């Protein structure tokens, strides 16, 4: 009996494990290709990679519905893909093509998708937080049971906008899930050199906001924490702060000689790679076969190649349209 009933559950769990792996892998492969495209000087400007942090975006997105909103930073390729924005639209955006998610006007740092309620793509550190509070305020005032997930780095914690928004959200009990991606560095500045109090949960206490630290290299731990938090938020419990402990495997952006950390440190973190470690875990528990892994890799590779092809085939917006989208074209 119990066996019989257990089976489908196990299947569902197994499927979900594969989905988590699939999501993290497509982000990883996508960005590896971005690096190659950047070196080929096809992608330009600032490009910030999420490689090493995939478990954070993938884990949190599991707890969100399509009605919820997402606000992210300039390091948002992973969030956009995990949110379901087509890889082709992302790649085309970085190519500066009309087919890009922002018609090529935003680039890597400014991915937007109104349909997916993905509100950027904000390149001013801390600048997205007040906007997230406002999106949540709109939901609260209109009696909608939605959550707004706001991603930002630990470096943003030093900004005044972090403080003002944390207080406002807690004071008004706004349905915001604050996701602080603590990858230990803000460009070259280590957390301990920018914060007097490095335990970020203690900071949240200063706003009477529930907060807990999560292993950001463990996608399941992230998903569990996010589900617990969003359940609490949807129940009207007010905002929650998650400190997601992770690590950036690559340079801050494409221009960064990484003088501020030593190879050894990076190596140790590589041992905790969210993807390979999860792969190993699944395989060990029989949750993943070699064939399945091959299929996932193949699918990711195919998706990335399709994205590149889509971007290559894209067109450039006519220069005559330069000043479009400064003001709306239709006014009452």
């Amino acid at each position, binding site marked *: 009996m119990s066996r019989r009933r257990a089976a489908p559950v196990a299947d569902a769990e197994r499927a979900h494990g594969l989905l988590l792996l699939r999501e993290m892998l497509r982000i990883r492969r996508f960005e590896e290709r971005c690096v190659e495209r950047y070196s080929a000087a096809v992608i330009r400007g600032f490009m910030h990679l999420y490689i090493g942090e995939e478990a954070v975006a993938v884990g949190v997105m599991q707890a969100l519905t399509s009605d919820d909103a997402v606000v992210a930073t300039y390091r948002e390729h992973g969030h956009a893909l995990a949110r379901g924005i087509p890889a082709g639209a992302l790649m085309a955006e970085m190519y500066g093509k009309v087919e890009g998610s922002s018609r090529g006007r935003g680039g890597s740092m400014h991915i937007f998708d*109104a349909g997916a309620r993905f*509100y950027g793509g904000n390149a001013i550190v801390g*600048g997205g937080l007040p906007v997230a509070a*406002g999106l949540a305020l709109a939901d609260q005032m209109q009696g909608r049971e939605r959550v707004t997930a706001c991603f930002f780095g630990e470096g943003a914690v030093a900004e005044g906008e972090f403080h003002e928004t944390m207080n406002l959200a807690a*004071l008004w009990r706004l349905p915001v899930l604050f996701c602080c991606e603590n990858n230990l560095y803000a460009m070259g500045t280590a957390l301990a050199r920018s914060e007097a109090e490095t335990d970020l949960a203690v900071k949240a206490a200063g706003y009477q906001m529930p907060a807990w630290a999560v292993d950001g290299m463990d996608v399941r731990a992230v998903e569990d924490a996010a589900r617990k938090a969003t359940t609490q938020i949807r129940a009207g419990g007010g905002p929650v702060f998650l400190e997601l402990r992770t690590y950036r495997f690559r340079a801050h952006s494409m221009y960064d000689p990484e003088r501020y950390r030593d190879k050894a440190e990076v190596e140790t973190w590589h041992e905790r790679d969210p993807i390979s470690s999860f792969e190993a875990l699944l395989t060990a528990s029989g949750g993943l076969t070699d064939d399945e892994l091959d299929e996932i890799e193949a699918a990711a590779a195919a998706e990335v190649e399709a994205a590149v092809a889509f971007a290559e085939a894209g067109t450039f917006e006519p220069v005559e349209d330069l000043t479009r989208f*400064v*003001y*709306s074209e239709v006014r009452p």
Partner: protein
Amino acid sequence: MTTTYREAMRAAIRDAMTRDERVFLMGEDVDRYGGCFAVSLGLLEEFGPERVRDTPLSESAFVGAGIGAALGGMRPIVEVMTVNFSLLALDQIVNNAATLLHMSGGQLNVPLVIRMTTGAGRQLAAQHSHSLEGWYAHIPGIRVVAPATLEDARGMLWTALCDPDPVVIFEHGGLYNLEGELAADAGPVDIDRAAVRRTGEDLTVIAYGGTVATALAAAEELSGEGISAEVIDLRTLRPLDIPTLVASVTRTHRAVVVDEGWRTGSLAAEVAARLAEDAFYDLDAPVARVCSAEVPIPYARHLEEAALPQVGGIVAAARRAMGA
């Protein structure tokens, strides 16, 4: 009926909140206190604390929250107590409100209205007397308006709220007690065109917001000297209604621009530059500017008066323009 600029502004807010439940007012002390300048007095009782929403002293956060709320389907009226404090929220206005539509390739509108008091003249000294309309008028992606009359105080807000893009409304602190007649059925007005407040033949005096009355007083004095001055109220500071200005100057061949901002890099500089570009061959004299002196506004009354545009300065500039 007889009313004041303050009451007209309040009527406009009440009207908007009644017409559209998505509209709400948010800012420092807008509720019980009634707003720093008593504009929102009584609205709390009428609409409740949800829609007349007091905020902490967090300019960046509540202006940014207004942007987010607009993205989320609301029609927020964010009151920044004065333009002086708006510097703390400027990043949100410049980098989010003004850019989201463009950065998203046309996907995201920000139907937000930001109201703020501006200007000097009440001996509030250097940190409380800024006139930064010119800075806001420099930002692509937002509209900037400056109601100078009861009709505009009553009518610009609703039009601004109906606009799909962010609109900043500057209310000069010296105007709130302005009293006069307003039609009982006064309603929405356009926020696109400048208005000729007084017609004249000899020269054009261009002003906006708090200096329109000063310009009209100067025109009156000039008429006594046989100089017929046309007075134009810009009304909308971004985008500027250049055709109306050029049409007037093409007739009068002379212009004086009045601006309470510091002269260098003032909005008056843009107006003067545009006239010198678009009406170059019609100008019989250099476009004159009567602006604030290049000094942080002093507290002492006599020094503050000397620092700000006054009737005498406009009259003198007009006489020079007439070659008198």
